[in-house]
């Protein structure tokens, strides 16, 4: 069996006086889409932020590509090959779309072929290239955030609720783009509340509750077992569609 790309082993994270992650152990295999599910406040976003070093793990270990990254600073983690698309899109609103994209190309000038591919995935990136990112709609901002994460090949992309608050048509476009991205060698760790979308993309799934992983396995198994869905998340895929 191939070495997992990312592993979290008994990770604890405190934010101020609050003990948010209480021993998270998670494995993200190489390639494909791993989905992290769970109700609001379960610790999904904190897990992503802890992987990125934005919150420091107080205990446990985060390993990426066989290397311990628990104590690395955020820029070093990013340069190791992990891109992060935060829930609030994380774009630079004072800068233009072009400047946002150029900033994300940390290893040098943007590769024209790669840019063309990204712009085909998300046409607004081409159409609003010289516009201020702050003037984009919510959906376009989300597209820019994802585009920025993929403008250079990354080993792993952490995406936090990419469809939150978006119109149905934009969700379809976003899902299509992520499906195309899945065809590349990039591994995606996706946090998503929209179970229909998550289940259509995910290969593996982990469910969180109260700062712990309460279930991990194949997405197909969870999709096929309505009872398990009810037990883990209080809803079933059928009820959600």
């Amino acid at each position, binding site marked *: 069996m191939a070495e997992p790309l990312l592993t979290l082993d008994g990770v604890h994270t405190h934010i101020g006086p609050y003990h948010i992650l209480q021993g998270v152990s998670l494995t993200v295999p190489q390639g494909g889409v791993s989905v992290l599910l769970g109700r609001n406040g379960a610790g999904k976003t904190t897990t992503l932020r802890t992987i990125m070093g934005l919150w420091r793990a107080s205990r446990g270990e985060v390993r990426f590509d066989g290397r311990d990254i628990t104590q690395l600073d955020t820029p070093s983690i990013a340069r190791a090959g992990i891109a992060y698309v935060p829930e609030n899109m994380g*774009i630079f609103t*004072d*800068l233009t779309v072009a400047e946002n994209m150029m*900033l994300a190309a940390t290893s040098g000038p943007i590769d024209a072929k790669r840019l063309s591919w990204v712009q085909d995935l998300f046409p607004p990136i081409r159409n609003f290239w010289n516009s201020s990112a702050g003037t984009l709609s919510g959906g376009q901002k989300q597209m820019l955030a994802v585009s*920025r994460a993929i403008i250079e090949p990354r080993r792993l992309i952490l995406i936090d609720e990419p469809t939150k608050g978006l119109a149905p048509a934009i969700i379809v476009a976003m899902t299509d783009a992520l499906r195309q991205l899945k065809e590349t060698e990039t591994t995606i760790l996706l946090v998503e509340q929209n179970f229909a979308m998550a289940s259509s993309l995910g290969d593996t799934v982990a469910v969180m509750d109260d700062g712990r992983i309460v279930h991990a396995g194949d997405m197909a198994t969870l999709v096929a077992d309505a009872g398990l869905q009810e037990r883990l998340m209080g809803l079933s895929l059928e009820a959600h569609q």
Partner: protein
Amino acid sequence: MLMKLLSGDRPASPVLTVLLLVILIGLAFAPFLFPGSKPLETAARICIFIVLVASYDLLIGYTGIVSFAHTMFFGLGAYGTALGLSLGGASFAAAGLGALGGVALAAVLALAIGLFSLRVKAIFFAMVTLAIASAFAVLVSQLSFLTGGEDGLNYKIPRELTPAFKLFAEPVLGLRIDGKVLSYYLIFGVALVLFLTLLRIVNSPFGRVLKAVRDNSFRAEAIGYKVVRYRTAATVLSAVMAAMAGVLLALWLRYTGPATTLSMEIMVDILLMVVIGGMGTMYGAVLGAVIFILAQTYLQSLMGLAEQATAGIPLLPDLVAPDRWLLWLGVLFVLSVYFFPTGIVGRLRAGKA
């Protein structure tokens, strides 16, 4: 060619373009267009303050760092040059050596402040810089054997930069080209080069990261940029530019003292010039410096004329009396900030004026 010189940073407003051209031509031909020592003095101060304000804008406008130590760096450049000329005699070598020492010390101090203080929250960094600048001013005042204390330093500059030196026997376009005019063109030329360098810096990939850091430092970190490193680099670059402006001031005035370089009043003036011109726009530094220094220099005279013109009207002559010029200067700035919250350049670029 012109766009290359401007590093692709178009003024992006016809009115702004015209204003910048008028200022450039006005400063380039100031000795010919505005004869007399006061206009030349004003033009030289404008050139020096454009660099000083633009270097502060690199810090506050492009990187989002509030510092009150900018006049300290300005003073280091000026005192370095002054000490070089005082101790080494009136030669270009002594001035150069002193300037180099002042600029290098400013860079080292900025590096130390950046590395030790930029990890703290913005307000604490501002307080740290305020404390360091105040301590430096006290130190300069107390080291009177070296700095001249509160009286400052008077010194001679190379003869080629003094009015006694005549470049040509005959006037050119009605102007006698003496050392003072040469000194002005030295300041104008160096200021222009420094301003274009700053324009290049803010329009480079490095400048783009600074803007990202200003916009959201956490996001910049998450992309892979070490924010403290970039903030420190911006602090050092800004300090070096401010020190170079100080060098120019020292050469122009032939005097360096706490009141002309280190005072908190100058720090407030710089802040006002940045805000009036428009933060995060290098061209704002040009407009801010020109408007502020012209108002500072000529408002009193204009008000004297207004007082004479309104002599027959009750109350009005008292209101516009020249000794109330500071009050009207304040009113002018309150109004400009009210009507141009993004600065004059921001407003012009938005196409609203």
